[in-house]
């Protein structure tokens, strides 16, 4: 089986001074429809790697191929979801979600927007502006805006990092629901061990300075995942140990 995404020897050095070696050569394959989580401490280069595979940054060396074709820039088949700060504050919820659909006829676009408003549970807020929404709602607007152009891949860079812990939990199950419904390949960056075990098919553990892959862990818990099952705790503790954190306070 061929991979959806193939990264070969991707390395990144930011020119100085001082010169920063952000990533050691990285090899990674991601399968079609897989939900892969990049886990690591801040400063480990996981966001840099995600921006490289999304085509926003050109690596110093190495190649990224998606569907066998080299990535040479951002593409609307692969949408990058920032934290909720990527939502355009001058557009309503509906206009934000329809942002990537400007080439569709008005009625087709309206129908598509309505569909994604429904999917992310924002019915009744179509005409609200982002500053009238909570952080979790803005995050859903951004996910809906990404999904509306029907991409094959989503890149999420700590998308729930700015949310409170309760909203974060419900957003995780929402993401899983959307992922299962929409069948996208998702790469997800986080520094939250629990988040990675709850969501991912595989967790890519990275270490810092320079960033490199430390290990790749299969999360073999069937969904819906029981967050107090022995296997969950075992995997979580293993990952905590892997990134060098104790699991007791």
């Amino acid at each position, binding site marked *: 089986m061929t991979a959806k995404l193939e990264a070969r020897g991707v390395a990144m050095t930011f020119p100085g001074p001082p010169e920063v070696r952000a990533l050691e050569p990285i090899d990674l394959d991601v399968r079609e429809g897989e939900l892969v989580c990049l886990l690591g401490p801040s400063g480990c280069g996981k966001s840099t790697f995600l921006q490289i595979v999304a085509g926003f940054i050109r690596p110093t060396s190495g190649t990224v191929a998606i569907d066998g074709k080299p990535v040479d820039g951002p593409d*609307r088949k692969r949408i*990058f979801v920032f934290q909720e*700060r990527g939502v*355009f504050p*001058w557009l309503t919820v509906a206009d934000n979600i329809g942002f990537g659909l*400007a080439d569709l006829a008005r009625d087709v676009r309206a129908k598509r927007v309505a569909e994604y408003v429904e999917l992310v549970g924002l019915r009744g807020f179509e005409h609200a*502006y982002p500053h009238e929404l909570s952080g979790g709602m803005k995050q859903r607007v951004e996910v809906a805006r990404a999904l509306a152009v029907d991409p094959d891949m989503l890149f999420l860079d700590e998308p729930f990092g700015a949310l409170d812990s309760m909203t974060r939990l419900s957003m995780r199950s929402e993401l899983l629901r959307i992922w299962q419904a929409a069948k996208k390949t998702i790469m997800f960056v986080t520094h939250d061990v629990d988040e990675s075990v709850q969501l991912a098919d595989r967790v890519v553990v990275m270490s810092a300075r320079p960033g490199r892959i430390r290990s790749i862990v299969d999360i073999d818990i069937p969904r819906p995942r029981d967050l107090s099952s022995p296997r969950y705790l075992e995997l979580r503790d293993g990952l905590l140990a892997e990134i060098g954190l104790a699991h007791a306070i």
Partner: protein
Amino acid sequence: MRFERWLLPLAFTIVLVALWQLAVGTGKTGVLPGPWQVALGMRELWERGVLVGYAIDSLRRVAVGYAIAVAIGIPLGLWMGLSTSVFAAANPLVQILRPISPIAWIPIAIVLFGIGDGAPIFLIALAGVFPIASSVAAQVRSVPPMFLAAARNFGLGEAAIIRRVLFPAVLPQMLSMLRLALGVCWIVVVAAEMIAVDSGLGYLIIDSRNAGKRYDLVVAGMVLVGAIGLVLDLSFRLLERVRSVRWGFRSNS
């Protein structure tokens, strides 16, 4: 609320005007006019039929000069904001020209345009163009990079990014800046009309002093300038309530 908004400033103004009248009454200079004389002067201007005409002349020169400042300042600012090399080339010059008062340009304006509307319009445009250009440039440069990254991700070209992302992103701050620039242009028109023209509120003020030391008309002219300036500012503020820019006028979002 109602008291703070309307009655308090009204009462304060009445007290000050009364003090003014009192001071002029007890003073013996006989030169400075009291509020009552100013009101009579205002009526005289009205009866001579120059009040509305002068105000319209001043407003027309500001409208033309300001329009030129906007038409040059916004594209120049966008260009400087978008291109690092244009910014590097033009910004030092803009920053040197910006603090030079338009008043200092008066001799040059007369040489360039002679007698007529050209000189004051030139001065008004100068007063507006540099602050507009430098602030639009700064605003474009401070647009969050993720807005631009998102726009590129959705496949927008350069022109579409300017139209659909950069322009709306800077619009609220740009409106504030445009309002301030209009205020500056209105201040400058008074000085600009003291030269080269024989109409307008600036002309009224300088001519009333030169021809017969009519200080009642001088102050009447000043009151008109202030009142019209206030109306201009308040009208411009209405634009800030348009829904698609209101996000930029909240204190925290």
